[in-house]
């Protein structure tokens, strides 16, 4: 009786539809959820000289879980971590802001260009991806260093007597970050701007709105999704960026990814590094969750 009723249910699990869904589900679990759980597990453990202790204990037929919150508490104790998180968030926010301010007119221009030019212009936006990321960041070194191209040019023109110190400052870091992440802002912005109904702008003008007012009251609200998507695409990786601060940032530039590197490779403290990572992920999840909620709301709204 039992057997009979369970069998069709098991059979029902292996429908084509479920199997198709299963592929990405397994993928997501194996490559995203499982490693994350592992990191969480390590962050709650101790570091014994060379190995990580286990939080799972099996003795006398009893399974005990021992959580060590010391790493998390230490994050709160040492103000360095707080400063680093804050500094990383600030750099990510500044990068996002610059990318938005630069990327919006960029995307606007491409979206308003004649249709046959658009694909060419989009290609140009994506062109940098064809060269190695590392190489492009190194190129900025050649441009911004004390005897780099920019300083040579300025000296040639007689504008500066001694070279401007630009490398390894927050200036060079910001330039590098904005440069690297700009395409991630432009593409989603373009996608929403190109769909913007021109008649909306005409309607606004017709009702007496100046071009600036039209932009602010109609164009921006109607491209909100692109702004949010682009900002997240820039903000999240910028927050955890390691290579650019390492190559272009100053020695005292506090970025969380560098702390992470140090915990892993210099201090060899995996639980501490894992705790840093978990907090970092939580900090990113907040804006992400907010975006998802907004997205769901507007999706309902678009059902016309």
């Amino acid at each position, binding site marked *: 009786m039992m057997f009979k009723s369970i069998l069709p249910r098991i059979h029902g699990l292996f429908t084509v539809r479920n199997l198709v869904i299963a592929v990405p589900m397994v993928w997501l679990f194996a490559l995203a959820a499982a490693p994350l759980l592992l990191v969480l597990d390590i962050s709650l453990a101790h570091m014994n000289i060379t190995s990580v202790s286990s939080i799972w204990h099996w003795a006398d037929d009893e399974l005990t879980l021992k959580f060590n919150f010391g790493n998390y508490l230490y994050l709160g104790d040492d103000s360095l971590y707080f400063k680093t998180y804050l500094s990383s968030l600030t750099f990510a926010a500044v990068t996002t802001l610059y990318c938005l301010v630069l990327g919006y007119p960029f995307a606007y221009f491409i979206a308003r260009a004649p249709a046959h030019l658009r694909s060419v212009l989009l290609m140009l936006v994506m062109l940098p991806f064809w060269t190695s990321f590392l190489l492009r960041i190194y190129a900025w070194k050649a441009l911004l260093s004390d005897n780099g191209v920019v300083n040579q040019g300025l000296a040639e023109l007689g504008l500066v007597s001694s070279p401007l110190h630009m490398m390894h400052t927050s200036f060079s870091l910001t330039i590098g970050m904005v440069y690297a992440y700009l395409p991630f802002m432009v593409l989603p912005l373009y996608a929403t701007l190109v769909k913007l109904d021109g008649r*909306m702008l005409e309607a606004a003008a*017709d*009702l007496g709105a100046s071009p600036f007012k039209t932009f602010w009251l109609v164009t921006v609200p109607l491209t909100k999704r692109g702004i949010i998507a682009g900002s997240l695409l820039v903000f999240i990786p910028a927050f955890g960026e390691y290579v650019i601060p390492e190559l272009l940032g100053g020695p005292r530039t506090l970025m969380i990814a560098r702390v992470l590197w140090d915990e892993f490779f210099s201090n060899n403290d995996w639980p501490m590094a894992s705790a840093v990572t978990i907090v970092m992920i939580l900090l990113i999840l907040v804006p992400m969750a907010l975006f998802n909620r907004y997205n769901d709301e507007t999706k309902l*709204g*678009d059902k016309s």
Partner: protein
Amino acid sequence: MAPVIANTDPDVLLRIEGVSKVFDGVVKAVDNVSLSVSKGEIFALVGSSGCGKSTLLRMLAGFETPTSGRIYLSGQDITDLTPYQRPVNMMFQSYALFPHLSVWDNVAFGLRRDGLRKAELAERVDAMLSLVQLSKYGKRKPHQLSGGQQQRVALARSLAKRPTLLLLDEPLGALDKKLRETTQFELVNIIEQVGVTCVLVTHDQEEAMTMASHIAVMDEGYFLQVGTPDEVYEMPNSRLVASFIGNVNIFEGKVDEDEPDHITVRCPECTHYVGHGISGVPGMNVGVALRPEKIQLSAQQPNKAHNWCEGEVVEIAYFGAHTTYHIKLNTGMNLKVQQANLTRKTADDLTWGDRVFAHWSRDAMVVLTE
């Protein structure tokens, strides 16, 4: 063809003088058009798509600049004013309501640009919403409304600023047929209640005739004819106008005799005896336009020399209120005849293959030279 001036009313609100619009240096969308629209009237621009009516409307709104010519509103030259500087508002085709704003905010959008005081703004918006009977829907977003309601929001939004001139771009184009008929009257009522002067663009000649006090029929950038709906319908000045506005049968023939009280036109199908003020030179090639509803059908041969012909019923389209017959004449011409169904359908009504005589009165047709 010389430009036609609609009327020379002293009460002219909108005057268009020799306006042309050339796209890409070659395409003449609007070709030397002149027009006057009186205060308080509803003026319709009709024509098939690509005839230039929308371009002309967009020039009135300020979205396009005329290549040449001037536009005057209340005597003031507005040709070079931007859309947001003109006391002109437009109700867009498929409405262009702002999807991110509520109905109330859509209507308030234009008033906010004028910097009205909060209380006055609210009062005006509420008045507009009650005018279009949408007071209860202020908080909704446009996509939560039906097509007819959206149309009324668009109307309220375009009227909120009390424009001197209201432009309507295919105002009923997005509605289904049944809704269109009721909305048509509603729209005209509201416009008349507000008393605003209106220029309306439509491809639907029936819509133009029921709504407008004057109609301009456009083709390839210029006006074929400007007049009241009945003038344009009953006295079309060209074959194009006759066939665009309503259904028509056009006989081709030559003027036979030209007397003071009538002319006769000899066509292969029959001879037309036209009894109203028309004159022409004998031998001149003309067209005789005859509306389907002005023709009678009978089984017996009419007892007169002119204005009848014989044929075979080849097509019957029953519309309930009336029936349209296609009569194949001896020359092969297909004559459309529309008969009101004055009595209920009976078995001895005309049917396919019947031989019939079609006849009409001496005042039924129009002689066309163009």
